[in-house]
């Protein structure tokens, strides 16, 4: 057994972001919303070390363990049609609220990439699987490996016809989006590519970032952003309206607005779930903003994401500040798609066999 040690999540800010933060600080001062939107996301805070109820080290456990394929770590499956492939856990800048900050650092080797691709096309997997989310870390960090993975999937897993690639490099180091990355998406007939990104405040769309997304959209027409509701960064109607407005102008689709996950060191970022609900109502149903840019408000729970609809919150445990959330996931399906999946201690099944999970709320 190898000894496991806790990963120290270092502060890493890309030179591009460092320069932008310095410019904002010099121009507007430390109290300015735009500077704070970046500094809170990237600069290490002593609040991360403060005692808090949030104790999870991971967002969920869905690692696929498959002895025959000798799969490397970094393959997760919660859903029938989709597999998550973490090609590298490294990034050019470390977001302080990263949900994979405690994961072991690893970048796939060429051999591991081929094994993963062959697994995706293997009997018993290929029947259901038709989509992969290639993420990390940041998948754009290793363009050559990314291209190798895409080519290998095309060769060994023709059942995979949709590939989503997740990145924040356009916002963090737009100069790195060169032909090495654009070529990954060029001339791959039969594959639908989508780029998944994450933007939490409109200030992140600097001119260089906008130009970068323009280059990217020439090869991948569909770019969507999921955003995290972060206290002090975007937890106002104004900040969210500006964010979704800018995304719409740039042709970036709104996907999930995530309630900040109950991860260790995240307490200071976490609003209440209700605040998120109220903000979502305001930006989607108040008539002051176009419905064309509506995000889906969701929580990343121990059993995967749960979108908030009417009836999602089944119970409130005010003493422990937690909510029982109803999902439409079924335990038997989970084990069918990923036999190594274990029901977490926070989850239970209802009478119909659907999963429910206790979710730690944030604070005002």
């Amino acid at each position, binding site marked *: 057994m190898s000894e496991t040690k806790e990963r120290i999540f270092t502060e*890493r800010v*890309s030179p591009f972001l460092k320069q932008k933060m310095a410019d904002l600080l010099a121009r507007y001062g430390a109290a300015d919303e735009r500077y704070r939107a970046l500094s809170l996301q990237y600069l290490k805070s002593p609040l991360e070390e403060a005692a808090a109820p949030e104790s999870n080290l991971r967002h969920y456990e869905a690692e696929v363990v498959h002895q025959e394929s000798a799969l490397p770590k970094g393959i997760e499956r919660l859903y029938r049609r989709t597999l998550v492939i973490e090609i590298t856990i490294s990034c*050019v800048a470390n977001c302080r609220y990263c949900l994979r900050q405690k994961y072991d*650092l690893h970048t796939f080797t060429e051999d591991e990439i081929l094994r993963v691709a062959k697994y995706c096309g293997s009997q018993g997997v290929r029947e259901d699987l038709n989509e992969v989310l290639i993420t990390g870390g940041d998948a754009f*960090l290793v363009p*050559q490996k990314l291209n190798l993975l895409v*080519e290998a999937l095309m060769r060994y897993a023709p059942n995979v016809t949709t590939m989503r690639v997740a990145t924040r490099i356009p916002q963090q180091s737009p*100069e790195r989006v060169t032909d*090495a990355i654009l070529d990954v998406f*060029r001339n791959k007939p039969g594959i639908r590519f989508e780029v998944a990104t994450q933007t939490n405040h409109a200030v992140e769309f600097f001119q260089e970032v906008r130009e970068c997304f323009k280059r990217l959209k020439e090869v991948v027409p569909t770019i969507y952003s999921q955003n995290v509701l972060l206290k002090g960064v975007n937890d106002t109607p104004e900040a969210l309206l500006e964010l979704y407005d800018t995304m719409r102008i740039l042709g970036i689709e709104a996907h999930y607005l995530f309630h900040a996950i109950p991860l260790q060191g995240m307490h200071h970022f976490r609003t209440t779930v209700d605040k998120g609900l109220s903000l979502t109502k305001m930006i989607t149903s108040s008539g002051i903003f176009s419905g064309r840019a509506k995000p889906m408000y969701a929580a990343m729970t121990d059993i995967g994401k749960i979108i908030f609809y009417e009836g999602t919150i089944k119970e409130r445990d005010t003493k422990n500040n937690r909510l029982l959330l109803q999902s439409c996931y079924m335990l038997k399906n989970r084990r069918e798609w990923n036999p190594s999946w274990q029901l977490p201690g926070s989850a239970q099944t209802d009478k119909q066999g659907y999963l429910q999970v206790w979710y730690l709320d944030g604070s005002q």
Partner: protein
Amino acid sequence: MYKTRKVEIYASEIAEILNLTLTGEDFIVKYPGSLENLQPHTVVYSETLTPEIARQLKQTRNILMILRESYGLKAEGFSYLVSPRPRLDFVRILNESFVERDTRQSDPTARISTDAKIGRNVVIGAHSVIGPDVVIGDNTIVLNNVVITGKVVIGRNCVIKDNATLGSEGYGFEFDEAGEPIHVPYVGSILIGDHVWIGANSAIERAEIDDTVIAASVKIDDLVQIGQSCQIGEHTMIAAGTVVSARVKIGNHCWLAPNVSLKDRITLADDVLVGIGAVVIHDCESHNVYAGNPARLLRRRTQEDLKSV
């Protein structure tokens, strides 16, 4: 074939991409560098560490060194990564972060037969000629002035360098009753696997009847002649100036040093190493080193041979 990427990348990022551990400070790396000319903000590699290199490292700040072992070094002013294969990891990070493939489209001066089957992302350089019976696999790069004619099938991810000639008529003549040499028509195919490299000015002769087979990951240097109906096994390396006569069989993982000559119809088994300038006129057995003119068995091949090559 490559163009450089201008990136500013943390030393710790390089460590993470290579799955290695960074010792020393984290700083921005801007370029790949060399030991002969140490510059700040570069990544370099060294298989060994001499006192001279150690002294230079301490004088130049912000160097990221990839080393085979730590040699008890204190990372002062520089940082290091310990790797079992320093040069390999250096090449990997070069490919991943500091260069990218030149993605220019096929040159308009290239003459590509409309009957040729060309795969995805194939680039064909200026003044190259691709015949009607040619098949080229995905992502293969054909540089300038290359001529590919006859029945030639090239795999994926190959590189055919400038002025190479594949499938040109073979040098086969039969003398008639009057002593006149009559050319023998060559009708065979050339089959080239994936990830094959064919150097500049090299020639792969068209096969008379039986196919010429160059298996996956064979790397052929510049100025090499491969005669008709040869078979070359996977991962074999053939250095510049080598002449492989007709119907030679070369096994997997062989290594031919520069200027080797192989007599026709001989067989080299797997893992054979042939020294520089050797003239090989007999079969060679597996795992041996041969050298000289005519080539003789020198000794068994060792792991050290691989390193020194």
